[in-house]
């Protein structure tokens, strides 16, 4: 069985002080084992 997650996430976000927050990034890579509750990306 397989699960596919498709989601929208920020590419960049302007803060109030004019700086830009970092993009969404994955915490895992292809081939990794992962368990329920562990972060896929932030």
């Amino acid at each position, binding site marked *: 069985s397989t699960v596919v997650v498709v*989601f929208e996430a920020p590419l960049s976000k302007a803060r109030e002080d004019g700086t830009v927050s970092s993009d969404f990034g994955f915490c895992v890579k292809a081939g990794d084992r992962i368990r329920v509750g562990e972060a896929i990306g932030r």
Partner: protein
Amino acid sequence: GAAAAQGKFLLPGASAAVLLMLGVLHAKRMYDDKQLVERKEQGIEPEFSPDLKASFLRLLPLRSMSRVWGYLMEVEVPVFMRPAIYKAWARAFHSNLQEPALPLEEYPSLQAFFIRSLKEGSRPIDPDPNCLVSPVDGKVLRLGQLRGPGTMIEQVKGFSYPVSSLLGASSSLHDATEKDISGEQTEQNVPESSNAKSWWRVSVASPKLRDRTLLSPKRGIFYCVLYLHPGDYHRVHSPVDWNIFKRRHFSGNLFPTNERAVRTIRNLYIENERVVLEGQWKEGFVAIAAVGATNVGSIKLLIEPELRTNSPGSMTLHSQPYDERVYEPEGTGMMVKKGQEVAGFHMG
């Protein structure tokens, strides 16, 4: 030995030939798998390559076989045999026997053991409000960002499938993409409604259109494909706090979904039976597609227990309409918290 010494064979010729052939096929498969591992170690990604076995699978009644498998797995096991059988399963498929919520003797069948719940605290949920967590235990097969028109997910190097076919709502997706490419879409045509369908259309199909409607912040569409081994915990949890707007059920085929099948069966995920939950989280669109397989053909939803999957005689081609349910109240749907259990895979 005595029979052989007298010049008599223990096996008839045809049986010996079949055994020999099976042995050769098994040896070839082991050789292929070894080569694949070596190529992976060298950084060479496997490519899509349809084979005879994949073609043969299309001739088999996989859904019927799946249901028979399910019936067998639901047969009650005598209490004294349960620990031995479940330990053997755990050894074969690398399950962790420290985690099940109940003692092994209390699972009446392999099915019950397969869909076991876990002890409290076995799966701590990452508390970071800006992260998505894994909805399942499994192996990450693919991940990335969906870019541009077409929005394809790579099944394996050399073969991709459209995300619209996986999730549904393909006509609106196609329309929006076409309009965006041709430049016919103007700001006056931008849909103002925030309902789920138009939202999906704007977000996934048409990045340029999306950027005009939602000028800040810029967003991207990402995906992650996770494969569950037979020994894994088979319940599905919510990856974020979100509102589920709708559910789609695609009653398709039930090909295996192991890594070999991914390399050899075209359109594997969009031909297989699956349930899609679609909604919105604080950063926008989110959807989960639970794709069934031959051995794990049924998908049960906690938020909709009456949904039946892998039913006899309900197979439709992937080009035919799917069954869809919009959760009430429309536009708000069902609120689900990050880590909350939403679904589960069952054998058969």
